[in-house]
């Protein structure tokens, strides 16, 4: 009896062990069932491969660059895309039925843009489709038309649509650039204010002067430019209506009149005036003409710019001994220094989203364009060249244009906002400086 009891006890024990094992197994099984999760926190540090297939054409086409070539150049310039050389394409489809995804996949392409151009009574109509090669889906399909003499606009429009379809951000390829060129030296110097496409094409001179032209600034509607001109022998701020060429003086005070910057609502202009003896930041109400002093410091306060919301103001001040970036949460509020660790930080240019502010930053003996994350305070050197100045952010915040020197000559360079790729605009004669990226206008 005792023995059997013992054995029963043993049996129970074994049962317990078995149950324990089961539990362990369950635990193991359940922990095994917890599905694997892979986190991807970084993307490719390279541009997206995209194939812009030369568009099929029917009817007479204007001479000059092909639409697809312009699109390809636009996408390349953005630094975010790496268009495939058409000579490497296995086929040149112009509509969906001709697209073999496998081929494009094999070529490592992510997107394929195909299209047809038709001349319809002097108007060029583009019919284009964009495909996601991996998902084998059409993500864009539209038609657009433009006068035969305006195919660049058509091309930039297509670039904008493609860019937006892929990135979710509006493209900025149809926007304009303003910049100043200098040709000649000494007494033969000629300053010209240019407005062009962002690829430098279709450039038009809006102002020509023997005296320096500085700091062009776009009105939010893209119809006016404010700039500093020394045409009268001393600096004054002008507002220039592009459509009519009409110019008005916005500021012509004794001393310094410089660094105009439009408010996001276009109603006022920030500027630096030294009419009271020291350079301070003022705001001029364009409707009333009233001028408000925003800073009051013995040091130089200049190069002011509204933040994306039009509430706070960034500016440069040497109140700490050298130029540094400061920020006022609202006009007249106490300024907070943003930049440290460098002797020279100047000319702040915030993006349109309130995420970053770009500025000229000196490191060692070189000057670069730096980007500061306003949330994390992280500073990132965007440009790799060495004498960089005058940063201007594209309205979608994805590209940055700045002036730099190439072979002892001033040139403009477009770089993706994260510093991915640089694209130098074709240099016209002389030096190019003071670029200003215009707004998106619809």
């Amino acid at each position, binding site marked *: 009896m005792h023995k059997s009891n013992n054995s029963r006890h043993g049996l129970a024990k074994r049962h317990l062990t078995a149950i324990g094992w089961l539990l362990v197994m369950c635990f193991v099984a359940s922990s095994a069932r917890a599905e*694997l999760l892979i986190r991807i926190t970084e993307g490719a540090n390279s541009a997206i491969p995209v194939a812009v297939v030369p568009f099929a054409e029917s009817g007479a086409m204007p001479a000059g660059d092909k639409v697809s070539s312009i699109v390809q150049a636009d996408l390349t310039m953005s630094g975010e895309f790496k268009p495939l050389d058409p000579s490497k394409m296995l086929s040149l489809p112009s509509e969906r039925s001709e697209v073999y995804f496998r081929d494009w996949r094999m070529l490592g392409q992510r997107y394929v843009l195909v299209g047809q151009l038709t001349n319809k009574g002097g108007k060029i109509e583009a019919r284009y489709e964009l495909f996601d090669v991996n998902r084998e889906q059409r993500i864009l399909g539209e038609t657009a038309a433009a006068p035969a003499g305006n195919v660049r606009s058509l091309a930039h429009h297509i670039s904008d649509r493609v860019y937006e379809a892929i990135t979710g951000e509006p493209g900025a390829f149809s926007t304009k650039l303003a910049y100043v060129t200098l040709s000649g030296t000494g007494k033969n110097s000629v300053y010209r204010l240019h407005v062009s496409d962002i690829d430098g094409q279709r450039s038009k001179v809006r102002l020509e002067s023997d005296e320096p032209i500085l700091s062009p600034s776009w009105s939010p509607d893209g119809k006016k430019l404010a700039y500093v001109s020394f045409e009268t022998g001393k600096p004054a701020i002008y507002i220039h209506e592009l459509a009519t060429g009409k110019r008005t003086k916005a500021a012509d005070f004794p001393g310094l009149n410089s660094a105009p910057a439009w408010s996001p609502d276009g109603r006022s202009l920030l500027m630096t005036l030294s009419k009271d003896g020291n350079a301070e930041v003022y705001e001029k109400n364009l409707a009333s003409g009233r001028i408000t002093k925003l800073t009051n410091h013995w040091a130089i306060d200049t190069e002011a710019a509204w933040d994306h919301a039009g509430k706070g103001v960034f500016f440069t001040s040497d109140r700490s001994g050298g130029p540094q970036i400061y920020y006022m949460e609202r006009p007249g509020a106490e300024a907070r220094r943003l930049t440290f660790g460098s002797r020279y930080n100047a000319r702040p240019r915030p993006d349109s989203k309130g995420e970053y502010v770009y500025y000229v930053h000196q490191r060692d003996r070189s000057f670069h364009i730096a980007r500061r994350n306003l949330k994390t305070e992280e500073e990132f050197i965007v440009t790799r060249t060495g004498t960089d100045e005058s940063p201007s952010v594209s309205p979608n915040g994805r590209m940055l244009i700045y002036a730099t020197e190439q072979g002892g000559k001033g040139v403009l360079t477009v770089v993706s906002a994260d510093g991915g790729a640089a694209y130098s605009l074709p240099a016209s004669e002389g030096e190019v400086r003071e670029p200003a990226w215009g707004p998106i206008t619809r």
Partner: protein
Amino acid sequence: MKGHERDTVNKDNVSLKSPVALSLGLHLMIVVVALAGWSWTNPVQEPEPRSISARLISPEPKPSPVVDEEDQRAEAEKREQAAEQQRKKDEAERKKAQQEAERKAAEKAAQEKARKLEQERKQQEAKAREKAEQQARAKEAARKKAEAEAKERERQKAEQERKRQEEAKRKAEEEKKRQEERRRAEEAERKRKEEQARKEAERKRKEAERRLREQQLNALAEEAEQARESEARRQREAAAARAREAQMLTDSEKYQALIRDRLAQAWYPPASATENMVARLQITLLPTGELQSVSLVSSSGNTAFDNSALSAVRSLNRYPVPGDRDTFERYFRQFTIEFNPKRLR
């Protein structure tokens, strides 16, 4: 035949009721005499009634000849009657006178005869009575004798019965005793056998118990041995499982890292991406590493972002997966990929 039967039946009664028979005989006699023997002058010569009576009760066939005789006589009488009638006619006259004389004589004789008959009848009656008495006595004696005999027989029979019963009783007693004896013997035998059986059973039980105990001991020993072995095996297996688990985990981590790298290279976070965007995709792979299916299980809220993730997942021709099937099944058959740009360009 009926008459025979009846006679046969009556035969017993004759001896019992002889007076009746006697009277019957007498009447018959009278009729016979009246019919045939009328002429007989000497009635003395008539046979003794007793003999008649005796003859009557003597063997049966006698009455038949009487009947035959009567028939024959009737035949003869008929013939005679014809002659007689002739003769009667002749002698009618003579007879008449003679009859007268004879009648007178006959009357006298009849009277005489009646007297004698009366006497005789009385005598016969007396005789009959006597005889009846005698018979009754004899009968009584016979009865008594029979009774006595019957009694004797009864007694003897009773005696015999008693004896027989006694004998039977004795025999029964003996039988009983014998049976008792046998029963006792049997009982004893049974008890002996039972005892033997009990002892055998006891022995067997003890043997069985001993064997059981041995078995139990063996079983316990074996169980202990098995437990030791199984514990050892379990530990070996657990160790192996742990090692395998670790190996699988190591493998899985290795391949996770490979997949992560490949996807990171393949993923182009769109310009509109922000750091707080998260897209979750569930992917199902084939053991060859080919993508079987992918589905967006949690959107980032940004179509371009979601599409970039989907495109990245689809862009890999072949996912790096472990060759080990178990590791594959456990970790890579189906898993989730989370796209979340911690560090934007």
